[in-house]
């Protein structure tokens, strides 16, 4: 029996495991699949949008800056073309011009200067003391002399402050001269500096040599790495935006978006930490993954819990079924025992009858004359009487057996429970006497008749009687069976004064397979079957027990009428 139980536990455990695994796989796989697909699409889409966005941004700013430069250049050109060298070389006139420019356009123009073909600044209007400055050696001058219009890179120059120059070359009486204006670096710088997105996005302008033209928001050491490739490009399409992603020194991934300005002289670069730019995306991915993970945990716990529950239910159903099967087998066993008993009883009846009759014949013969004087006549008569008595005894025994056997069919019949009890007690008396147990019957007179399957009632009563006898086998004791009726309820009590049942076992005593008998002796099914039968009959069974005092089983059954058919 123990081995079977272990096998069962293994079976249920493996069943539970399989269920858990199935639920987990079936639930988690689609979760992960769908999650991954959606996340991937979102990721791709987001990247595209983000790139487009940044490119739009850079393009817009590039256009703004280019327009700005074009405008300023246009303003100076206007001045140069409207007024001639002669007029402009007058300092106060120049100052007027500067004032007017500043009035119209604000402090963008810092100063104006008129420089002759030798590089001498012949007139200057502005805040610095740059009158008579010589620019012959200056880089910008050299370049400005070569073209009609020239915008310089940002440099420090004589004033020692970063600025850049717009220069317009014109001719006066055969000689070239230059009208130059300084553009306020701060305003220009602010333009670019204020292009900020997120926490790490900022922009700056570089010239073709990689030198900064504006001061970037974050101090960065100019590294040529990412832009070297850009700077090599010959600009053919002014609207082209270049994008690249590189890791910097600290291992962070940075996005660079760049576009050429000022006809390819300058490069507007916008850079942002990849992480920063895609912060939302990362947040979303993390959120989604968190949800998936929690979901997965939830699924696992639910799987564990549900599977355990389900398998418990299955186990319970299996047990019930097993109990029913055993019940059927027990009933069938009882029926076949009954048939066997009946067969034997019938067979014994014949030889016993013949023996008794032969004894009777001898007695008849002894009445003849020749035997009347025999010394042993009394003894003959006594012996013959004994044969008859024992034969009578055999008859009673077979009578009991046959009576018991007859009740083993499970049809519903009219039953007087007291009669059943009497028969069963008679059957059990020998065994009881042998174990020094006395059986008392306390049966109510005129107990109501009820309809029931007598074999089932027999099973119950036999079980209880046998249990009591088994319990009191060693030391003997008393077994009392009581019947009573209350209204339409019949009560049966089977009490003994045996060793009793410990409290801890009392609550489990009707459980199937629960037994305290050693292996091979009891199956633990008897009481659970009784319980089942009594419940089926619509009754109740209770047990009370005190250690070393005794046990009482108390059955209550409703009186039933004949079955309707």
């Amino acid at each position, binding site marked *: 029996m123990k081995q079977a139980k272990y096998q069962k536990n293994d079976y249920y455990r493996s069943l539970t495991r399989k269920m858990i695994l199935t639920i987990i796989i079936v639930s988690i796989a689609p979760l992960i699949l769908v999650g991954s697909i959606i996340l991937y699409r979102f990721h791709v889409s987001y990247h595209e949008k983000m790139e487009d966005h940044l490119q739009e941004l850079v393009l817009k700013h590039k256009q703004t800056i280019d327009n700005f430069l074009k405008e300023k250049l246009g303003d100076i050109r206007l001045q140069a073309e409207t007024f001639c060298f002669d007029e402009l070389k007058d300092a106060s006139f120049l100052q007027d011009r500067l004032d007017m420019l500043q009035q119209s356009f604000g402090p963008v123009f810092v100063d104006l200067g008129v420089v002759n073909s030798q590089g001498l600044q012949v007139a200057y209007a502005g805040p610095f003391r740059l009158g008579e400055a010589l620019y012959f050696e200056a880089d910008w001058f050299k370049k400005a002399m070569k073209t009609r219009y020239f915008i310089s890179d940002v440099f420090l120059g004589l004033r020692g402050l970063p600025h850049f120059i717009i220069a317009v070359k014109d001719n006066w009486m055969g000689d070239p001269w230059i009208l130059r204006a300084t553009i306020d670096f701060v305003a220009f710088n602010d333009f670019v500096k204020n292009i900020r997105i997120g926490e790490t996005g900022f922009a700056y302008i570089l010239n073709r040599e990689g030198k900064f033209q504006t001061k970037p928001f974050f101090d960065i050491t100019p590294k040529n790495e990412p832009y070297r490739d850009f700077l090599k490009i010959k600009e053919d399409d002014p609207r082209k935006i270049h994008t690249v992603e590189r890791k910097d020194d600290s291992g962070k991934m940075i996005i660079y978006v760049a576009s050429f300005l000022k006809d390819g002289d300058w490069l507007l670069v916008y850079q942002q930490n990849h992480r920063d730019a895609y912060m939302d995306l990362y947040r979303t991915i993390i959120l989604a993954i968190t949800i998936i993970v929690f979901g997965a945990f939830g699924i696992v716990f639910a799987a564990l819990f549900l599977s355990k529950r389900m398998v418990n239910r299955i186990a319970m159903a299996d047990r019930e079924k097993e109990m029913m099967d055993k019940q059927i087998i027990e009933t069938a066993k009882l029926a076949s025992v009954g048939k066997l008993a*009946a067969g034997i*009883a*019938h067979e014994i*009846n*014949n*030889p*016993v*009858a*013949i023996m*008794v*009759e*032969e004894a*009777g*014949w001898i007695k*008849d013969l002894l009445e003849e004359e020749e035997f009347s004087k025999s010394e042993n006549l009394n003894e003959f008569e006594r012996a013959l009487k004994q044969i008859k008595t024992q*034969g009578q005894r055999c*008859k009673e025994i*077979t*009578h009991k057996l*046959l*009576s018991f*056997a*007859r009740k083993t069919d499970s049809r519903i019949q009219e039953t007087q429970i007291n009669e059943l009890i009497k028969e069963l007690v008679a059957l059990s008396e020998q065994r009881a006497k042998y174990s020094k147990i006395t059986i008392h019957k306390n049966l109510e007179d005129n107990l109501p008749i009820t309809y029931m399957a007598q074999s089932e009632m027999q099973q119950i009563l036999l079980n209880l009687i046998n249990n009591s006898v088994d319990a009191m086998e060693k030391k003997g004791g008393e077994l009392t069976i009581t019947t009573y009726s209350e209204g339409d309820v019949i009560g049966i009590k089977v009490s003994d004064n045996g060793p009793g049942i410990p409290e801890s076992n009392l609550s489990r005593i009707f459980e199937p397979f629960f037994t305290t008998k050693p292996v091979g002796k009891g199956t633990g099914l008897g009481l659970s079957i009784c319980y089942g039968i009594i419940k089926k009959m619509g009754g109740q069974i209770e047990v009370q027990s005190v250690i070393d005092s005794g046990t009482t089983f108390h059955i209550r059954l409703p009186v039933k009428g004949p079955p309707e058919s």
Partner: protein
Amino acid sequence: MVEDRNKPIKILLVDDERGFVDVISKRMSKRNIKVTCAYSGTEALQALRKEDFDVTVLDLKMEDMDGIEILKIFKKIAPDLPVIMLTGHGSEEAARDGIRFGAFDYLTKPCDFEELIVKIQEVVSSRR
């Protein structure tokens, strides 16, 4: 013991248990009852055709034929012949069936010899 005229009562005893039939017939002969033994239904019918009897004692549980069937045939052949049935314990229904089919009475086996004698005397006196 027996009755007025010293004329032996003639009974036909039908039972397939030879030991039983033989000893019963011996004992009865001591009481002025002449027993004809039939160990099967077939033998019983043969005996019936040969002579008349006062009573038949018929065991219902026999191997070759069902007791009730034999009873029915008896009642056809000799409707006036009273039949006492011997039934096994537990076959009371068979016994009641028998009564319905015309048997006079029944006794359960193993039966008391004296009881059987009393029953036979009952039958015979009710006829004479």
